[in-house]
């Protein structure tokens, strides 16, 4: 029943529901993925773009580790609605509890896990391209979210390759992923940070 509902709403919103399902199916094949990332952010309050880069690990159903290496060193664990900072010794310190509008990371987690219904509750989704090279557009449904967030765009092929986030205040964030691969075995620290057994 739930699947049917989801299928129906996808049909209503996605220009090519088959492609969306193919893409989601492909993405959720990989239960743990590693990649290198480059993030560029343009904020109208700042005179120049901000660049940062590092490594990320995504584990379906558990969250992601975001490890910035340049221009500073920091590891963040984004699990569900929680964000924690992990110091060199592996101690986790809660940074903030995001909720309300701050659900972009949650949305991504749901997306990558193939949980379309969670995403569709918050966003209108459209898709274009082919299974080998696709682009997904997300626009917020909730007025309160739309006051802040304009849109999100994901693109990729077998793996997710890029994320672009546009805010209403003019801030743009562009994340490019390279060297994406199945994660292989996780280290003890990674497991602990993501709450894995």
């Amino acid at each position, binding site marked *: *029943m*739930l699947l049917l*509902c989801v299928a129906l709403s996808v049909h209503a919103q996605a220009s090519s529901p088959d492609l969306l399902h193919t893409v989601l199916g492909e993405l959720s094949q990989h239960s743990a993925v590693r990649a290198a990332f480059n*993030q560029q*952010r343009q*904020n109208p*309050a*700042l*005179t*120049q773009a*901000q660049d*940062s880069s590092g490594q990320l690990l995504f584990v379906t159903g558990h969250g992601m580790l*975001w490890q*910035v290496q340049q*221009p*500073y060193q*920091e590891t*963040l664990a*984004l699990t569900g609605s929680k964000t924690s900072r992990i110091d060199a010794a592996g101690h986790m*310190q*809660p*940074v*903030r*509890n*995001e*909720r*309300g*509008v*701050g659900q*972009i*990371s949650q949305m*991504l987690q749901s997306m990558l896990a193939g949980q379309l*219904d*969670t995403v569709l*509750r*918050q966003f209108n989704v459209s898709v274009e391209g082919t299974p080998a090279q696709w682009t997904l557009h997300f626009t917020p*449904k*909730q*007025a*309160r979210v739309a*006051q*802040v*967030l304009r849109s999100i765009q994901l693109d990729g092929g077998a793996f997710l390759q890029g994320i672009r*986030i546009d*805010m209403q*205040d003019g*801030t743009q*964030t562009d*994340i490019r992923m390279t060297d994406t691969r199945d994660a292989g075995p996780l280290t003890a620290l990674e497991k602990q940070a993501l709450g894995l057994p």
Partner: protein
Amino acid sequence: MNQQGLWLRAGWFAAATLLMALFGAWLLFGRDRSPIQTDLLAMLPATERNPLAEVAAQRLAHANGDRVILLVANADDDRAKAAARELGHALAKDNVFASVTAELPPFDLQQWVAPYLAHRFTLLTDADRTALAQPGYNPAQALAQRVNEPFATGVGTRLQDDPFGWLQHWMDQQPWSRSPLVPEDNLLTAHRDDGSYVLVTATLNGSSYDDVIQKRALNAIDQAEQTIERDQPGTRLLRTGALFYAAAARAGAEHDVHVVGWISTIGIALLLLGVFRSPGPLLLAFLSTGIGIVAATTVSVLVFGQIYLLTLVFGAALLGEAVDYSIQYLSARANAGDAWEPRKGLRQVRPALLLALGTSLLGYALLGLVPFAALRQMACFAMTGMTAACLSVFWLLPALLQRAAKPLSTASVSVALALQNAVARFASGRRGIALAIVLMVLAIPGWWQLRHDDDVHLLVAPPVTLAAQEATIRDITGLGNGTQFYLVQGADSEQVLQREEALEQRLQSMVDASQLQGWLGVAGMVPSMQRQHANQALLAPLFAQPDRMRQWLDGAGFRHDDIERLLQAWPGTPLELQTWLKSPLATPFRYLWMGDAAHDGAATLVLPQGDASSALLQKAAADLPGVTLVDKPASISDLFGRYRRYASLWLLAAILLIVPVFGWRYSLHDVPRVLAPPVLGIAFTLAMLGYLHQPLTLFHWMALMLVLGVGANYAVFLREGEPHTVHRPGAMYASVLLSAITALLSFGLLALSSMPALRDFGLTLLLGIGFTALLVPTSVAHRTTFS
């Protein structure tokens, strides 16, 4: 006194009764507010030691009490939301609700942030405070982290107003940001694996305990529930609030009064008809008890201003003791046969009735000394009721019972005689003593297994479904339970906020350890001046040299104008408590501030959220000056324990008090024999309760008090009456058995009650009166054995 005097007195008595009944009816039904108190917690003693805690508890009860919390659940998100909207519209149409909140008003982000900007340098989160206090704090890196933060959504403050994100972090911690309910489609929504939950709240246009409001509100909610379940299939409505508990308690008590009242009335009627073989005595017996109940209710309302439901239920049971007086008089008439003369009959039963009434009054007066409003009211009710019933026998019944009556039915007398003889045979002489010893030995393991239990849930046993719904709602919405809270007191508002901060630091570490879901307190929203100045002092070194700050901000890419504006804004002003209290944002939390209620100094409430044990919550308050955990259920349980101990002492004192009374009427040598039936009855009842693994509660002891009272009555009736019925062996015991069975029919039926307390009460009486009635022939055994 002549015949005319008899009628005159009866006339006066009848007129007084009628006036009393009219007055009572006016007190009960003639006024705007019914004096019947259905709030079970209201009969508990005011929180002792700290009157402010009581004000706080009442304020919380008011904040929560007149509010109805509904959660609309559906596996389908759209249906859940549509159902919640429909529910909101349906309830808003009914003016029994003062306000209904389903859809939230439009929301302007900047309007929400703007008031805080002036205070951005004095409001810091614990995490930022810790980071800033570190010797190696690197502002340039902090800025880089902030501007590169992944998936930052920038909700709240603008980057240029809050480059380091301090205010943003602080606002993220505020209660409205922490709630598990998220505004979605203008509805407060939570998502779980099994679907969506949407919150709808309503405030009653009156009290939850007002029965008119109760009925109308429940009706409106039930109808709306049916509509939304029909329109949005699969919808479930979870509900909580004092309204539902009060309604359930009322329904339970009404059920009890109906079941116990009706079954006992019909049972007693059949019994009296069978024994006296005519309906007249039956009507008179009920008339006498009725007069007792009317007088008791009227006087109780007059003295206490209101009457507790528990007293009314207890009153229904009191029928059993009050009816004894008329039964004795009616039996005397039946036994006198054609020689009946009402005044002579009265003289014959008067000593027994006065002795019985005297011991009962003595006992209940003792109960009235217990500083527990509900027990006092029961004592007042019992004393008035029994005095009135007894007076009706003295003054009203003789006028109405002029003619002689049929003797007691032969069947009942011969059964009583057989039983009396059997008991007497077993209980006489050495055999009796041996038997008593054997029974005592058998009782020892029972006594050994006695335990006690003082849990408040004995008194307030909400229906399981309501409790389960409340638990679900609490789990999903994070709303507190309202019965446990901290009261923080101090000399002034500043000291109170500082003390609250000390408490909240401990609570936060419990939250971090997952022992607590969260907490809600004023200091989390307006820190103390001390804390705000300390925050400012932590930031001061960064702003001490504006050029350095310019350099950092410039390095991070901030614009020249914005940097200057920020430097201009430093150091800002601290957030004043009074300013905050007046702001619209404070409205939902204003009740936490008790400044106006505290006569000297100030006070606040801190509400722990989630399920933490009383002991853990107590530990968090330990050694903190001015912080008290007010834990109503725990303190009530504590009081129950204290009164249970009082009650057991009372029982002992009452027995000792009866000794001289009996010693005066009989001889000291005979006292053990007269007292043995009730005392042994109590002893065996305790043993049985032990064997049944019933933990003893205050209510068991209260029942044992009644056992002592009626047990002593039976012994007195039998001893006093026996000489007058030598011509009809067994007749006196038959009338005592009649009393006992009517008592069992009324009291014992309380074992069917929906309230655990009354169940305990009923079971104890069932056992106690049963044993006592069986043992009572031993009180005269040495004098008369019939064959």
